[in-house]
């Protein structure tokens, strides 16, 4: 699905939902190099539970118009505009981010503190430094960047080809999804992550759920714990045996944690 905002096409999935005018809104923000399809199960769940689901393709990702933005605050400003244009009559807004998407949520919550009612951050770190080897490969549009990031994004069970979703390879799904992105997108995304700093933000009071995976090599659990400590109103959930792509690696546990936090 697509919506036109300021002359640019923004692609999203509604999770096959048909929300009421005043349905609560929930926005999903994917991580570096990915698109809205990483949220398919969570999007469909909240759509079935009456939410206005907007699982977005960030600029230059998936089927949204570009260019990709290399700055988290710019992405948050873009999101601010998207929410204003699409929330309809929603009296509550929840932001759900993964990896780079969590930084967009934090930036928005810090600079527009009254906008979001709840945040859910999966695989987060603030700051979010990117290893030089990965950044350089992304700058060269070298497939090695995909291979490195995708391998580091999965826990041991996924690396061994096992999945909670019957018959699915999480590892190859990640690889194929990343292969769909255009030139320079990965470098811009990693640059946005690398340049992110919370120093100029006011304290964030928005109720926030942080989910970490104990086998996450991209944003290790201690980084998620540090973000939880930084926020004024947070709760933390650690997933055992899970890597960075927790939405596909442990979809049921993620859904249980999210629904308990968001629906109550």
């Amino acid at each position: 699905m697509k919506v036109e905002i300021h002359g640019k096409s923004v692609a999203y999935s509604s999770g096959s939902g048909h929300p009421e005018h005043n349905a609560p809104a929930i926005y999903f923000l994917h991580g570096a190099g990915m698109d809205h399809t990483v949220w398919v199960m969570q999007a469909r769940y909240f759509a079935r539970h009456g939410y206005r689901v907007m699982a977005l393709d960030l600029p230059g990702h998936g089927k949204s118009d570009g260019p990709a933005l290399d700055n988290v605050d710019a992405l948050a400003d873009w999101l601010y505009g998207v929410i204003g244009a699409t929330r309809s009559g929603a009296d509550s807004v929840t932001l759900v981010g993964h990896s780079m998407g969590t930084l967009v949520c934090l930036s928005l919550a810090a600079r527009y503190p009254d906008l979001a009612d709840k945040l859910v951050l999966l695989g987060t770190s603030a700051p979010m430094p990117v290893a030089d080897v990965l950044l350089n490969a992304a700058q060269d549009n070298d497939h090695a960047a995909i291979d490195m990031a995708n391998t580091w994004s999965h826990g041991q069970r996924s690396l061994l080809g096992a999945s909670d979703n019957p018959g699915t390879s999480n590892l190859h799904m990640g690889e194929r999804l990343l292969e769909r992105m255009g030139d320079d997108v990965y470098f811009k995304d990693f640059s946005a992550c690398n340049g992110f700093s919370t120093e100029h933000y006011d304290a964030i009071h928005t109720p926030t759920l942080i989910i970490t995976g104990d086998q996450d090599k991209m944003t290790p659990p201690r980084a998620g714990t540090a973000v939880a400590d930084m926020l004024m109103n947070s709760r933390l959930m650690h997933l055992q045996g899970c890597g960075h792509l927790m939405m596909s690696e442990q979809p049921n546990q993620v859904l249980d944690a999210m629904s308990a936090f968001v629906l109550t």
Partner: protein
Amino acid sequence: MTDSKHRSPQGMGFDTLSLHAGQVPDPTTGARATPIYQSAAFVFPDSDAAAGLFNIERAGHVYSRLSNPTNAVLEERMAALDHGVGSVVTASGQAALHLAITTILSAGDHIVSSRSVYGGTHNLLEYTLSRFGISTTFVDPRDMRAFADAIQPNTKLIFGEVLGNPGLEVLDIPTLSELAHAHHLPLLIDATFVTPYLCQPIELGADLVVHSATKFLSGHGVVVGGVVVDGGTFDWQSSDKFPTLSEPYVGFHDLVFADEFGPAAFITRARKEGIRDFGACMAPMTAFQILQGLETLPLRMQKHVANAMEVAKYLEQQELVASVSYPGLPSHPDYELAQTMLPKGCGAVFSFELKDGREAGRVFIESLNVFSHLANVGDAKSLVIHPASTTHHRVDEASLKASGIGPGLVRLSVGLEDAKDLINDLKGGLRAVEKFNKQRASQAAKPLEAVS
């Protein structure tokens, strides 16, 4: 990305995945082997979770026609070995091919297929699917121009086998995939004869792969099964040719598979429609037995290939043998292509032509003791069949020739026995042909009165 040609992630090696992919020790019992979940249905934790399973929000199992924990291990292992985003196992290889085709094709659509395909596949494409409005044009697998020329506005799929039947033509998958993609068409490959150990078609540019798991994947010849693997590489929304994936599906509440599932659109629809409605699912016991075979796939394929090469070289030197068709031999027209596409070997199924025709073929196979005379390939035991006196016994020689089958053509599936025993068995068969020829010659030389 500029360097966008798909490739495998830096994961575990093939041998490790053959043993482990898709399975971790059972969390409840600690069982190291894959348990056989012999259950038709699975209990829902609560009503909301049940609705979530039906709505593809939750991971899990509902009913064994749709998915089963034992089958899922096999599916994930095959996805890992073939570098796919997912797979679905089926009741047979034929069911896998049918599922792959019907997931994206409907009445009025068209397939361009290699003409050197398994007989059952030919029947499905030529006679059966045409009854349902899906037509096929068959072309020479070595003629890329013929593939291109056969593409019509309603063409939706290009199909071929890695190794053709019976001539063992090597399909140039990299070239054919470029051609298919230039026409916004997916390439489906049957890789039964090679298994992912010898060839991973998705790595070479194919989009979808089917296997008869009855053959080398199992290796033991005790079950029948199939598998469809989705490479996740094809963009189903790049044209309006694939409405089953790019448009709302009324049968699943207007779900647009490509929109919501991205690279997994095809395999999700295959499970949510094809297995759900056609129902050609695999039994969990079958999945377990195929998994037992897969654990030794690398070791078996090495021995299969080594034995096949020894046997092929032996046969090529025999006076009674007119020709041997094995791409591992320099005499095969596709030898050079095979060296680049199949560097680990060209499989263990090949054919050779006896000089003395149909009767010689019959005598030959009836004289063998180690090779088993039956209609299958890919068993751990060596197998043989003589089409002109068995599967094609009603077919006259002109029609046989048109199918690429000579009257003396013998097909071998070389197993894991000692190569010397296989060669000795074949020697016995050739001696029997020699003796038969001498008897026939001496009878022909006798004057009529001596006979009467």
